[in-house]
């Protein structure tokens, strides 16, 4: 090639991001678009390489390398920005007291077997839950109790406690409190969360879902070992449209019988009130010349209420005399 110059001129400054090895030519394209592609590309590459060659070069094992500057062209991230993690209760405490984490060895020397064994986990060394013999302490309250089981229980308790603390730390991170049972706050129309459904509710839901096919669940096969739905609703059954008359007569009589056997429930006071005041009183009042009065409805209610109250009192305070109750009220 005759031309060996490395100079390229641009009317508009291009955007060059060496961190990304990126070159954005901002000049409008001129001439035949397809023909000039390679020549334009060559010029732009030359310009980019000129910039790269100006960076500080360093020789690393026979190769010449350059250190790229930080990127400037903005590209979107892949994931959200990491959230700041709330320290656990222990981490907070440790920081306060200046306690630093000390690393433990992965293996410990097991005195019993004279071997190096893992510190934690399966077949760990110095595992006191695996002891074949426990010496009963002198001050034991009950020497006959199962000391092996006690150790196992204690280990289980420690694990459970740790899990509980982990959950509490998580709750603190999420800024919520640990829920003790199913939530009481329910949103109308959403229904119960699947996790909080009782066994029976799940059962009903499964049954309903099974019936919700085009053939009303007729061809729905049950799972292996699944219980058959026992509590299906009763299906209404109607009499045939055309039936012998004899049956109809019987049925009508049955209904009549049922209606006849019903007795009205009569409240005495109400009945009395409706019937009007007693005859004697009526005569008395006529004698005195007072107006014949029928008791008003509100009066009846008051009397009933009072009577109920006294009855209730009697039931509630069995054995207490009426007088005592009156005194008390005073």
């Amino acid at each position: 090639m005759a031309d060996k110059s490395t100079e390229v001129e641009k009317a508009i400054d291009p955007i060059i991001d060496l961190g990304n090895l990126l070159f954005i030519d901002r000049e409008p394209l001129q001439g035949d678009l397809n023909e000039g592609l390679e020549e334009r590309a060559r010029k732009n590459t030359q310009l980019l390489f000129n910039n790269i060659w100006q960076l500080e070069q360093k020789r690393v094992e026979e190769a010449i390398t350059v250190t790229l500057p930080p990127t400037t062209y903005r590209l979107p991230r892949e994931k959200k920005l990491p959230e700041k993690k709330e320290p656990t209760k222990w981490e907070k405490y440790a920081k306060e007291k200046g306690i630093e984490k000390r690393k433990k060895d992965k293996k410990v020397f097991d005195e019993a077997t004279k071997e190096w064994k893992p510190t934690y986990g399966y077949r760990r060394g110095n595992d006191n839950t695996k002891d074949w013999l426990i010496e009963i302490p002198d001050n034991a309250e009950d020497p006959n109790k199962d000391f092996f089981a006690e150790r196992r229980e204690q280990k289980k308790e420690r694990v459970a406690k740790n899990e509980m603390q982990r959950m509490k730390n998580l709750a603190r991170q999420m800024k919520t409190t640990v829920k003790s049972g199913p939530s009481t706050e329910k949103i109308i129309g959403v229904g119960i969360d699947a996790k909080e459904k009782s066994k029976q509710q799940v059962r009903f839901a499964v049954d309903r879902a099974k019936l919700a096919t085009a053939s009303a669940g007729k061809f729905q096969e049950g799972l292996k070992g699944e219980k058959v739905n026992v509590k299906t609703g009763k299906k209404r059954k109607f009499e045939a449209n055309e039936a012998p008359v004899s049956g109809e007569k019987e049925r009508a009589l049955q209904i009549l019988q049922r209606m006849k056997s019903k007795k009205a429930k009569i409240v005495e006071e109400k009945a009395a009130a409706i019937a009007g005041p007693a005859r004697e009183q009526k005569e008395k009042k006529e004698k005195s010349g007072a107006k014949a009065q029928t008791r008003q409805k509100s009066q009846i209610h008051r009397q009933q209420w009072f009577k109920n109250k006294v009855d209730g009192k009697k039931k509630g305070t069995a054995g207490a005399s009426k007088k005592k109750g009156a005194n008390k009220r005073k």
Partner: protein
Amino acid sequence: MVRVEKIKTKKGKRVLDERASKTVENDKKTLFCRGTKTNEIINHAMMDLYDMKKPLTTKMDKHNPYHLFEDETPIVRAGSKFDTSMFVLGSNSKKKPNCLTFGRTYDGQLLDMAELRITAYKSASNFETSKMTLGSKPCIILEGSAFESDSDMKRIGNLMIDWFRGPKTDTIRLEGLETVIVFTALDDKSLALRVYRPLLKKSSTATPRVELAEMGPSINFEVMRKKLADDALFKLACKKPKALMKKRRKNLSEDVFGNQLARVHVGKQRTDDIQTRKVKALRKTPLVEAAPENEIPMEE
């Protein structure tokens, strides 16, 4: 999201840590996926792109009935499964022949997606130049004023840079610059993709003269449908973590010539404590104690 379940194995923990959001992110991986139907052109084009992207890729071999502009969820879901945040879907149909849909996701949701129809294609195997080394970082060149003037085209340019830029590095070997990917916006609707290998020739200066040899593939695209994120989401996605931002130093500025100007505050000088020249005349004389009165006449 805080994970409630305890991680049970060390390997599982490693996998989850790898996938967790970080201040300095991993290199974006790309999912290659084929649509309902593909033809030879699409298959070859996808293979060429696959070779260019190689270590940072996942390929789904079967055809998938994905119609991304109707429902993008399956590819987003697949992306979250394979931990790939970029994808390309190749499809060929009567109405939309030879289409490649390039896209990227952010935080488990679709960010940008552009359907590009191949109008002219020449496979990489048609060029005799040796192909790019596995995992090398290509140079990317964008040409054409459409990448500046047209907002959609600008975003597509951004997508292409993101898609092709390869692994992040801070040092490169100068001989390792062996791929140049050039995008030319022929107009607002069409793009040309060319891939070259730069040949470094001797020149009169320290920088070599660059000649290009086409390496392929060479594809001309026509922009068909697109679904680009609105500016708010895009801005959110581009947010830079605070830890990576340079802290501005107070009272420091730079003038036109690149000189640093700063205001320096000098504390109070403790001249009493500073060691200075020891001259007898400057030595502090100890205070003379008040002498008793009766001794005064003796001195006289």
